[in-house]
């Protein structure tokens, strides 16, 4: 058996190899790594050290981020070359290797852009430094709301680790609690950041069990937490916490021409193996959704079942027991919807203890059917009929809404609705996340505030 990879906690005075460790297994159950779990005492001491630490000057942060991005995406970190890292992530998370590769490149690129990206969020009326001549007559200076930022990360897609890089760019000291499902990405990224100029007391990795997780948030000034509805319910009223809840991304298709948008719908459902919050989980069709659902199902059905490390893999893979649990959840919640694809089950076992989660397509008979809110971590989409009379209510509570419509009045209402966070128009897939376009508002809006400065 190969030697296990040791994923130490990355504390404020260096890596910490703890006595309490969790074994990380790949899809077949074979152990691949041991993740050090730190106790509460370690967490509180580390968070205190972050608070004491100074931030690097802005120019140094920007340069270090760019270096770290290159190292992360192409170099050898902790003895692990990029290709090997990608293979491990694919084999542990079940995410198709091509998705991991593009995520790796994306993280590298985003690190290099992180500082510049934060500029988008700065109000036009604010300057970065009190020394700016504009403050002589009185002006706003853009300042941090705190010093220490905590992240409860998710393991669904490596790309979740691009966002907090902006906090680092803005001078926050950052503590990341990795997902125990996929701790490799943050471990590699934070190691790369430390090798590229950030201090050990400026960015840390704190793997903990569930009981200690809240301590990281308590001891931070601000925090970002990934999770489902329960996370939104738990932290929704805490002004210090930015929940990254369900995506429930949707497509609205009006007008008779759906054939030319078929590719966009299929890609929106299945990109990233369907594991991202920007994947489409519901499609609302003006008119009869059945032919659209049939055509989408036909395309999705043609995707082959492959192990995730195969260059041709598109679908996510899970250990069979986990895959079956997701399948059971889906089938338990069909609740009268019409199956178009996957109604008899979605798991295709690969014979090595892992199973592909194959796409599922269902039709519901009304736009407010509760199933349209079900978001699962594989390509699973619900088609519903929609008419102008239904209004925007079924389209609300959405991270990305692609609206294929010529009705500008409708678009006005979608753009104005606060529960729809991004509106993409025309033949635009929901998964697009170009730099400069906010993901769920700019993180900088949460991290920063303006402060009046007048010099006399």
């Amino acid at each position, binding site marked *: 058996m190969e030697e296990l990879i040791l994923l130490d906690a990355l504390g404020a005075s260096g890596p910490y190899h*703890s*006595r*309490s460790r969790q074994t990380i297994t790949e899809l077949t159950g074979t152990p691949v790594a041991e993740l050090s779990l*730190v*106790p*509460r*005492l*370690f967490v*509180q*001491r580390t968070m*205190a050290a972050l608070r004491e630490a100074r931030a690097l000057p802005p120019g140094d942060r920007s340069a270090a981020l760019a270096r770290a991005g290159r190292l992360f995406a192409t170099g050898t970190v902790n003895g692990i070359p990029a290709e090997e890292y990608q293979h491990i992530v694919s084999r542990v998370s079940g995410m198709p290797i091509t998705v991991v590769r593009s995520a790796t490149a994306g993280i590298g690129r985003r690190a290099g852009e992180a500082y510049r990206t934060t500029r988008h969020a700065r109000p036009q009326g604010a300057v970065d430094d009190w020394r700016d001549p504009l403050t002589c007559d009185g002006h706003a200076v853009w300042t941090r709301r705190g010093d220490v930022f905590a992240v409860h990360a*998710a*393991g*669904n*897609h490596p790309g979740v680790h691009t966002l907090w890089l902006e906090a680092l760019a803005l001078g926050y000291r950052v503590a990341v609690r990795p*997902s125990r499902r996929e701790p490799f990405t943050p471990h590699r990224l934070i190691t790369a950041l430390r090798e590229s100029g950030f201090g050990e007391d400026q960015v840390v990795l704190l793997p903990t069990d*569930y009981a200690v997780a*809240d301590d990281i948030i308590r001891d931070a000034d601000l925090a970002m937490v*990934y*999770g*489902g*509805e*329960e996370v939104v319910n738990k932290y929704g009223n805490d002004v210090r916490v930015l929940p*990254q809840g*369900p*995506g429930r991304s949707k497509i609205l298709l009006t007008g008779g021409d759906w054939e030319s948008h078929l590719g966009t719908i299929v890609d929106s459902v299945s990109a990233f193996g369907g*594991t*991202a*919050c920007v*994947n489409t989980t519901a499609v609302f069709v003006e008119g009869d959704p059945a032919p659209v659902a049939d055509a989408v199902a036909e395309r999705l059905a043609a995707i082959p079942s492959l192990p995730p490390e195969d260059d041709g893999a598109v679908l996510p893979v899970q250990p069979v027991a*986990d895959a079956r*649990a*997701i399948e059971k*959840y889906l089938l338990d919640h069909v609740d009268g919807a019409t199956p178009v694809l996957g109604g008899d089950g979605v798991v295709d076992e690969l014979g090595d203890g892992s199973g592909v989660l194959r796409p599922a397509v269902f039709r519901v008979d009304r736009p407010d059917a509760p199933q349209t809110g*079900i*978001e*699962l*971590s594989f390509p699973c989409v619900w088609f519903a009929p929609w008419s102008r009379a239904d209004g925007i209510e079924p389209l609300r509570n959405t991270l990305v809404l692609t609206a294929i419509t010529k009705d500008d009045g409708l678009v006005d209402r979608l753009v104005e609705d606060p529960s729809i966070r991004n509106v993409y128009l025309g033949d635009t897939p929901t998964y697009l996340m170009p730099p400069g376009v906010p993901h769920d508002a700019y993180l900088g809006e949460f991290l920063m505030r303006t402060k009046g400065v007048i010099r006399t």
Partner: protein
Amino acid sequence: MATEQILDCPLDQVPEGPEFLEAAMRWHFSPETGSPYWLERAKTLGFDPREDVRTFDDLRRFPNVANELRDVRVEDLIPRGYGPDADVVGVFESGGTTGPPKRVVVLRDWLERLMHRTEQDLQARGYPESGHWLSLGPTGPHVFGELVRWQAARRGGIRFTVDMDPRWVKRCIAEGRADEAERYAEHLIDQSAYILETQDVRVLVTTPPLLTRLARRNALVDLVNAKIAAISWGGAHMDPDTRYLLRTEVFPGVKLYGTYGSTMILGGLAERVTSPDEDIVVFDTFSPYITFSVVDQETGGVVRYGDRGQVVMHHVSKSFLLPNNLERDLATRVAPPPGQMGDSVADVGPLPTFDNEPVIEGVY
């Protein structure tokens, strides 16, 4: 030897295990000397302890009657052999995690025996000969704070105390009021600060969670390092990483020793003295009075040395009998030192509780 001679053997002597057990069974199950509770309970045991319980293993024949101690009148727990003027030191109650509290009675002769042993333990661990003690933990109906009071008094010190009501903390958490439990815990630390700031305290006795919380305040860490010679922790599990950090980073010059105890054994046991590099906490027992077995959770059979199992506690003394009490703790079974009946235990921790059902919905 006569029954009472064995049971009342001099404090500095250790009676032979089998001989002691036979004497204890005679005492607790003879109509003239046994407690009303055990004499009544014996009728439904299906065996006669005076005949059938002769070895340490035979203690496992008893049913676990701990739950019955929630309802028994405390008078009925006192062996008749003590006569009408039994010297009751106190009645103590369990934490109340699983329903109404269980009650035990501590008599003077047991206290003397336990304190003699404790005194030896403190000596061997180099606790300060004088100075005051601070108990930051349960008092009230719980034996925790009382043990500290007796220990301090033995060494001529004063016990200062900050009371924690563990039942209230458990209730807050059970009701989802973590913020209330948090406020309460901070209130306890605030109070301990007043004592640490003003009094000549040399020994701190507290629980691992409170010790971790105290370590959040730099000023208190400095005070402890300046004033405290030894910290005793107990009442909850301490994970090995926390212990390592406390010993190496937070309180490097302070002795740190664990105590493993329970209301149901009427006392606590000090951590075995090992070399500082040993990364393991072992508890030897106070044989033949307080003894342990480490058993398989499924089969109930004793596990092999080095394996983990559930802890079974036995208390057998003249004043009290509670054999075969399965505790909600897991431990590694460790070979006992020479002369000790039953097992020693290491790495004691709570039984794992099942986490919430895995969350399936959502992409995270």
